[in-house]
């Protein structure tokens, strides 16, 4: 730096520039930076604010402005910002501030509902909300149409999210113990749930929406049968006691089971929303569809107690139909009272095969011939007790060769088939017969005769008494004779002494004879020469 005090010579003096009073200090960058940061934060804040939506609830129970979250799969996508009542005070309108980039969540078919702890038979859900408080669950729709005003569902949907699977529709006249959320079983594996049910407009049946999860939905073919597997299916019928259950869960809360009959398994999977019938039980579900059952009428001249509609009709133990109605009727002409029993026969459905049925044959005519022939051979209907426990009876057809001959009148509607008294009835008749015969027995005469016989017996016995005394005397004399004989054989009697001495004499004689015999044997010549040589 050049010292200004000692200028080297006559140099022009620099023009003094007054110090700029308003020179911009570097410090101004600070408020600029602050402003920039502020603007950036503000912009970020505004950008981070998603759309605002309104949700209409029936009740704001458990909801809190500023706290209640809108939650999709565990992720908060919004918060309720305000809750107020509608103009008519009937509902609650909540305003919610959604997270950014949730516009595509908010479409026409998006559904929202309040998640609260819910404990029903089928499941326990929303336990976390016991601590965290209720939140709003969301199921995102597939629509592209944006929506900002929603009406919350009263109950959370059973099937949420985009769980792969298909919905089917079941029709049932009776809801039983079914409810939304009731499980669906396939071979006892839980594969779905009832998502909703509604009574049809005519009030005659229920329409159930059921959801079957993938991959099990492909087991539902157009031929699949659905039946109520509710609890324990206890059936006391003429067939005895039968118990059917699905699983412990279904015992507690009921359920629906489905299965595809073997002949339908090769079919392609059913379309979504196919309508199926919900049967009462598995047996009914698997009964082949009725093919114009033949209606017949049976008239029993006996009590039909225990015979209920649905009771089986069997031919020699093979089910061929069922009882459809049991009524009483009075013929006003004859004033006769009878109990006609209407039965449906559908042998084909129940597994009776018609062998050698030519194609194109007149089936009706053949059937008539069959029935005519059977009746001619003595086939009759009979009431039989199926279960002694329940007293339920069923209709049995069997051959009764002794039945009075009859023919069928095919002009009647329905055709009346001949009957024969039931086993019980027949037994009763036999018993009555016996009792009648017993009744006819001449018991009085028999008694009188018995009396005289007894008197005769009395005299006989007296005669016998005198005979007996004579016999006693005879016996006494017999004893005397025997005693005499005894004396004869006594050891010390004279007779025995003599006998003994005689016997010893005989013995001696015998010995002499033996000596003689021995001598002769050795000396046979002695017979001619006499005793020689051998001197004594």
């Amino acid at each position, binding site marked *: 730096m050049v010292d200004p005090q000692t200028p080297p010579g006559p140099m022009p003096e620099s023009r003094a520039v007054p110090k700029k009073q308003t020179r911009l*200090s570097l*410090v101004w960058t*600070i*408020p600029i*930076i602050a*402003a920039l940061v502020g603007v950036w*934060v503000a912009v970020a804040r505004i950008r981070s604010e998603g759309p605002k939506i309104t949700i209409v609830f029936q009740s704001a129970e458990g909801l809190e402005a500023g*706290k209640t*979250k809108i939650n999709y799969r565990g992720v*908060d996508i919004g918060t309720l910002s305000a809750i107020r009542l509608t103009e008519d005070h009937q509902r609650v309108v909540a305003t919610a501030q959604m997270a950014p980039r949730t516009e595509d969540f908010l479409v026409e078919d998006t559904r929202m509902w309040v998640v609260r702890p819910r404990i029903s038979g089928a499941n326990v859900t929303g336990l976390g909300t016991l601590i965290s408080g209720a939140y709003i669950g969301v199921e995102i729709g597939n629509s592209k149409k944006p929506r900002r005003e929603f009406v919350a569902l009263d109950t959370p949907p059973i099937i949420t999210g985009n769980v792969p699977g298909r919905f089917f529709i079941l029709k049932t006249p009776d809801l039983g113990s079914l409810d939304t959320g009731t499980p669906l079983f396939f071979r006892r594996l839980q594969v779905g749930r009832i998502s909703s049910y509604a009574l049809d407009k005519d009030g005659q049946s229920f329409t159930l929406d059921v959801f079957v999860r993938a991959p099990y939905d492909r087991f539902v073919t157009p031929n699949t049968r659905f039946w109520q597997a509710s609890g324990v299916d206890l059936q006391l019928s003429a067939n005895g006691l039968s118990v059917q259950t699905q699983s412990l869960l279904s015992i507690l809360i009921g359920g629906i089971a489905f299965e595809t009959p073997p002949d339908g398994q090769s079919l392609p999977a059913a379309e979504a929303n196919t309508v199926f019938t919900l049967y009462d039980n598995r047996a009914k579900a698997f009964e082949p569809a009725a093919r114009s059952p033949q209606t017949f009428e049976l008239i029993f001249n006996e009590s039909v107690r225990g015979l209920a509609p649905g009771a089986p009709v069997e031919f020699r133990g093979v089910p061929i139909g069922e009882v459809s109605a049991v009524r009483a009727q009075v013929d006003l002409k004859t004033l006769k009272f009878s109990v006609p029993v209407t039965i449906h026969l559908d042998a084909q459905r129940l597994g009776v095969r018609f062998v050698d049925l030519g194609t194109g044959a007149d089936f009706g005519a053949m059937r008539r011939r069959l029935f005519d022939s059977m009746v001619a051979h003595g086939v009759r209907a009979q009431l039989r007790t199926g279960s002694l426990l329940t007293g339920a009876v069923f209709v049995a057809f069997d051959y009764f060769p002794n039945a009075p001959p009859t023919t069928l009148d095919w002009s009647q509607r329905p055709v009346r088939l001949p009957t024969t008294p039931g086993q019980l009835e027949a037994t009763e008749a036999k018993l009555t017969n016996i009792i009648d015969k017993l009744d006819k027995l001449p018991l009085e005469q028999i008694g009188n005769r018995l009396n005289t016989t007894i008197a005769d017996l009395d005299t006989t016995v007296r005669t016998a008494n005198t005979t007996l005394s004579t016999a006693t005397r005879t016996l006494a004399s017999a004893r005397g004779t025997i005693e005499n004989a005894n004396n004869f054989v006594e050891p010390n009697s004279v007779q025995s002494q003599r006998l003994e001495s005689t016997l010893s004499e005989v013995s001696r004689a015998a010995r002499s004879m033996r000596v003689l015999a021995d001598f002769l044997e050795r000396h046979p010549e002695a017979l001619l020469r006499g005793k020689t040589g051998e001197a004594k």
Partner: protein
Amino acid sequence: MVSPSAPIAMLRGLQTCDTCGLLSRPAPGASEGRCPRCDEVLEFRKPDSIQRTWAFLIAAAVCYIPANLLPVLTTATAAGAESDTIMQGVVLLWSPTGWPLSLIVLVASIMIPSAKILALAYLLISVRRGSVENNRQRIRMYRIIEFIGRWSMVDVFVDTFTAALIQLQPLMSVEPGPGLFFFAAVVVLTMLAVESFDPRLIWDATNLSEVAHG
């Protein structure tokens, strides 16, 4: 009260050292002088005091807006996360028993920063306009805001301590929100503004006017 016409170092061509208080005569012709005792840079008045103060003040005012609008504390509990701004905290604390605490937060965190900004703005404007009124009031105001400034940091400390201490994952955790940074910036910027303001300017106008009239 000191007479308005008390001797002023600047008018006598003397400089005061801000650090050690030594009065010294600047070396002739030197553009920049150093204190012969403590080697501090010597100026007649703080350079660009008004401009710098304005800059800091405007920056503080800008930061004051997000400091109050953004949440300062995010409390995450099992019941869900919850963010509160300062004002929400005041409302939250306000209860029949907790109102003194609420009042403290309201005064320390909302009223004092805004009062500081407004007071400094008033001082700057009055100096700029060469006001000669209420000198003593103004210098007292300056001293108050200088003293009180650091106490606003209490809020920031409390928040950061809470955030550091309450980390009971996963039951509960507290995290500072973005508002806290702006709030700290407000406190720091206002303190810098107060620091860069030269209170001697308050009575310079009085002396200058006296010089002019006398």
